[in-house]
């Protein structure tokens, strides 16, 4: 059980980090292409989120150590890159973390031109995608585990990555805005947010809301397909499908639906009303993220619970 917890934390946090990083990249690219804002101004919005990604990733990697029976030998885990997806995953993970750290450092210290730093970010994002891909491959290539040995696994991992990543970015943006307004309040100023910042943010959140609703739809299509596949996959597959039933499973579905679906709609609507008080939007965006996070966490937990092997 302890094993499952550490793996759940690691995989959720790592995928969320990659997703958030990619979404931040998309926001950056789109914001710049619209013109009218300097990269510095955009960075001021996205950097805090970027650092948060870093912290999340480090926490996730740390959690994965708890999964090991003999962490002292961990130095050896890169020795089987030519065959083991786990070796590759760790390589990608360390690569993503390393490149991400360098990128964050360059952002913080303003080293190099924005273009160079953007290229670095792009590379980091690619390595991040490689991380999620190899994580999926770890599970999906196991013939012994029918619940994992399916196209469903990489699709679900991708959905989690983007869904959690998007909503995390949304919450992070709103968090940044609210925190800065707080700072202003504490210094005796009237809390305001730059109108163009607000525009960037609300546009991003609209996009995030749309994305999360679409991803929710995808997730809710994949789940029944997966269950159907398992029901026809033989005795072991049927047995492993039993995890996806009952109160906890229902809760997972409800949370994700509420967070990505209902609140997604609210996020979109609140974001569309670009008025002075961003607080309702902040609440909704944060709650949406929170609900989906818990729902996804449960989902990933049950993913590990469904580990039933064929044979004996």
């Amino acid at each position, binding site marked *: 059980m302890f*094993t499952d917890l550490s793996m759940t934390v690691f995989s959720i946090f790592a995928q969320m980090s990659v997703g958030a990083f990619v979404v931040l990249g998309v926001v950056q690219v789109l914001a710049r292409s619209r013109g009218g804002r300097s990269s510095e101004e955009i960075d001021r919005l996205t950097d805090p989120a970027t650092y948060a990604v870093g912290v999340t990733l480090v926490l996730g990697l740390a959690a994965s150590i708890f*999964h*090991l*029976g*003999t*962490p002292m*030998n*961990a130095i*050896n*885990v*890169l*020795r*089987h890159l030519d*065959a*083991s*997806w*786990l*070796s590759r995953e*760790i390589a990608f993970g360390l690569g993503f973390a390393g490149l991400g750290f360098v990128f964050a450092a360059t952002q913080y210290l303003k080293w190099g031109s924005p273009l160079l730093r953007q290229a670095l970010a792009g590379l980091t994002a690619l390595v991040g995608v490689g991380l999620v891909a190899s994580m999926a491959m*770890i599970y999906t290539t*196991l*013939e*012994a*585990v029918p619940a994992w040995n399916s196209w469903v696994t990489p699709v679900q991992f991708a959905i989690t990555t983007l869904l959690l990543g998007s909503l995390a970015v949304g919450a992070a943006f709103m968090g940044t805005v609210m925190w800065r307004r707080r700072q202003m309040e504490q210094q005796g100023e009237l809390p305001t947010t730059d109108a163009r910042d607000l525009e960037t943010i609300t546009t991003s959140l609209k996009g995030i809301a749309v994305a999360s609703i679409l991803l929710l739809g995808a997730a809710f299509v994949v789940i029944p397909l997966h269950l159907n596949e398992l029901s026809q996959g*033989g*005795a072991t597959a049927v047995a492993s499908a039993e995890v996806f039933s009952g109160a906890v499973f229902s809760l997972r579905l409800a949370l994700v639906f509420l967070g990505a679906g209902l609140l997604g709609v609210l996020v979109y609507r609140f974001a569309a009303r670009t008025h002075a008080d961003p607080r309702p939007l902040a609440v909704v965006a944060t709650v949406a993220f929170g609900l989906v996070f818990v729902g996804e966490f449960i989902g990933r937990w049950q993913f590990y619970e469904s*580990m039933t*092997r*064929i*044979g*004996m």
Partner: protein
Amino acid sequence: MAVTLGFYFDQTLCNGCKACQIACKDKHDTAIGVNWRRVAEYSGGTWQITGDTFSPNIFANYLTMACNHCDDAVCVDVCPTTAMHQREDGVVVVDDDLCVGCRYCEWSCPYSAPQYDAETGRMSKCDLCTDYREAGLDPACVAACPSRALDWGPIDELREQYGDVAGIAPLPDPSVTRPNLVIRPHHSAEPVGAATGAITNPREV
């Protein structure tokens, strides 16, 4: 690869006693929960009850499994540290100096051969009793089986002598890992993939 070694199991003789499991534990002093050889009971069927009488249409048989030192050893492929490796004679062993205890091999093996030892924090498994073999003796399980249901040796010789059935229900299709195993099926054994029975003692396997 020099000579590939494997096990032979005569299922017609097995009564599920687990002398093989215990002989292995006694030799290797493995902890509770760590079993380098395991025995499953596979049974199924139905009863017909008519008034005061009953008629069974049932079956049951036993399967013992250690490690099949497979030709396509998936545990070796997936291991990130190369701790799980295959020797010249096909025997798959764990290098304790490299193993991190990530248990990925445990997930990958459809025969439950890699066993996680919580005390050492590493994986452990059947090594076909390397030291006994080197001394000209049989592996502990083979020498112990009261029914003489186990044998071992170069897989070619085993196949020549006993045939080439390498999988029966509930085992996976041999094509998955290509186990070096020959089975003489019990009269009630079902082919791989049959769904009429189930493992009756799942907690023990």
